[in-house]
């Protein structure tokens, strides 16, 4: 082109698409992943704001839904234990506080696990037609889950105080516990996206598995001290997450701190692996989604 005004001398970015696996050139892959993550931030914020606004506007109870489910679970368990239908071992704190903190924290995890698939399915019509940084839908999901978690805690802390349980300075660490729950949850969810986007079975299994897991984690009743169940509880990587969160909320002693750190670090590593997998998979998934 002849010399013109403005645009002519700007260097044009070049993209090449080939059938080769993106893993063939890892340096390039990681560089574009990092760049896309940066590009995705603004869009992620927009998408999250869109979803939250829409959700809030088209529902009467709005944000109340963030704790209606845990509240119902709590009421059921409190009712069952107070009427003696079931006998709960001593939890070291008022039982309603124990159940409510447990279910609220658990709900954060459940949301995080189902988030990646939900985000991908929700954005399907955009994914099959437009090229935008794919990371944005995941970041938007993380933002939504994080905000919901914050709202839950804002409700939960007054309830804890109301029952006369006083948290100590470790309450300030609570965001860390929530972050660990969200990281571990979304890592698991993200790893399931490639298969879950092809086969709907995964989407059905997740809620069921989470239901079963809840009873193998000290959510609604305390950790048994011995027996087979106790072994399960101890081996369950989710146990330290819930226990730590609850401890920081209620001022109870923190059991297994090194387990907590280990699980959180593993979660972070898995999240990175999940991201890489997502990145490799998304073109294949879009191809099979149809429009």
């Amino acid at each position, binding site marked *: 082109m002849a010399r013109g005004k403005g645009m002519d001398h700007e260097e044009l970015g*070049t993209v*090449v*698409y080939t059938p080769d696996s993106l893993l063939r050139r890892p340096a390039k892959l990681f560089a574009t992943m990092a760049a896309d993550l940066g590009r995705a931030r603004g869009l992620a914020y927009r998408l999250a704001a869109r979803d939250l606004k829409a959700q809030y506007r088209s529902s009467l109870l709005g944000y109340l839904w963030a704790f209606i489910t845990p509240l119902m679970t709590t009421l059921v368990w409190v009712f069952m234990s107070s009427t003696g239908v079931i006998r709960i071992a001593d939890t070291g704190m008022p039982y309603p506080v124990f159940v409510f903190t447990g279910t609220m924290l658990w709900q954060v995890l459940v949301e995080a696990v189902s988030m990646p698939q939900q985000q991908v399915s929700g954005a399907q019509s955009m994914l099959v*037609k437009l*090229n935008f940084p794919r990371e944005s839908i995941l970041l938007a999901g993380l933002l939504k889950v994080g905000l919901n978690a914050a709202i839950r805690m804002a409700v939960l802390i007054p309830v804890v105080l109301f029952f006369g349980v006083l948290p100590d300075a470790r309450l300030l660490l609570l965001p860390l516990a929530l972050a660990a729950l969200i990281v571990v949850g979304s890592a698991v969810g993200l790893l399931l996206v490639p298969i879950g986007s092809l086969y709907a079975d995964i989407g059905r299994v997740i809620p069921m598995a989470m239901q079963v897991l809840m009873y193998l984690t000290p959510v609604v009743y305390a950790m048994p001290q011995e027996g087979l169940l106790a072994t399960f509880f101890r081996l369950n990587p989710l146990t330290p997450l819930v226990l730590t969160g609850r401890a920081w909320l209620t001022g109870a002693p923190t059991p297994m701190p090194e387990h907590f750190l280990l699980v959180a670090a593993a979660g972070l590593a898995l999240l990175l692996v999940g991201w890489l997998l997502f990145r490799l998979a998304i073109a294949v998934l879009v191809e099979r989604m149809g429009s």
Partner: protein
Amino acid sequence: MAGEVLIRVEGVSKKYCTDLHRSLRYGVQDLVNEVRGKPRGNSLREKEFWAVRQLDLEVRRGECLGLIGHNGAGKTTLLRMLNGLVKPDTGRIEIRGRVGALIALGAGFNPVLTGRENIYVNAAVLGMRKAEVDARIEEVIDFSELRAFIDTPVRNYSSGMNVRLGFSVAAIMLQPDILFLDEVLAVGDMAFTLKCLNLMRSIMERTACVFVSHNMPLVSSFCTHVHMMHRGQLVSQVGEPMEDVIARYVALAPALRTVYGDGAQVGARVLGDAVRTDGEGRVHVQQGTPLELEVTLRVDEPAHLQFVMQTQGTVPLVHYAVEEGGTDRLFAPGTHHFRMALGPAEFNAGRYGLLATVRRATDRSVLHRREGLVELVVTAQKMTWAHILKSVNVIPLEPVERHNERTDG
């Protein structure tokens, strides 16, 4: 003004699977290969077919490539690969510069949010930053002509209003080097469509554009050249004249040949040196060529005959009344053989069919009706929006009254 090559496609293929269950299983296979760092296989697995096969093309800045072809020819698949949504199974695609796609208008719209809020979401999806949107949002609203409804939730919009808003966001905000268009220019009423077309023209001057459409007048007025796809392959040559490609596209459509009734028989062929009959019996004529028919008609009882020239969409264009002395001509029982002049073929480039109807003289009931008695393919230098093209001359009534001309040099 052909600029640098912005889109380069070399030997690109893409396979798809016709069976859902297999397709999902192959999806898992492809995933595993991707993770293991292996390329896609370039042989077909069971129930797979080539949606796009060994395709090469180049588009330069300032060019607009019209991609035509019938449904399932692979146009959309190609566009999705160019856009980087799916990977090619063989070959290589090189894209230089910022890409804009007017494909999913209003992508990311949430029905509960207002038009204004959705502009921000949509623009963000298209890669715009908030500051850029702030700077141009008024322009977008003005262009969409939806200012009165801009703070209304878009679920209260009509579908036309939705598309309008989506188009306005994309067209005003995007300043691409490369533009992909997939059948999106027919939005809303005529006035708005023309406004869009003018805007697109101004964008196209500095972009390399790929335009997928079934609308031939639009293709011929917008594109600098045209390629036709058929079963995943390009079946047109580089440099082939646009009207030839379009004529072949038109010729590929399935023919309408329904026949009703056997109370009579009619046959016809087109006379003349300027006509050419192809292997499928279609008659190719240049626009403006006089049409003359040789007709054979066999009737068992007194009957009338009439012809109608139809478009491919069976829109009746011309009724040829076969008359004698101002009334319908009566054909006595027997076999008739005659010639008939239909006048010049003043049709727009495209495909036409001659419909013959034979009616019983007594009660006008239909004895025989044959669509596509003659199938006509008209080729032309000019494409128009109208079905019939006439050239007219100007006869000045008085000398030109001159106004002051603008003198820009």
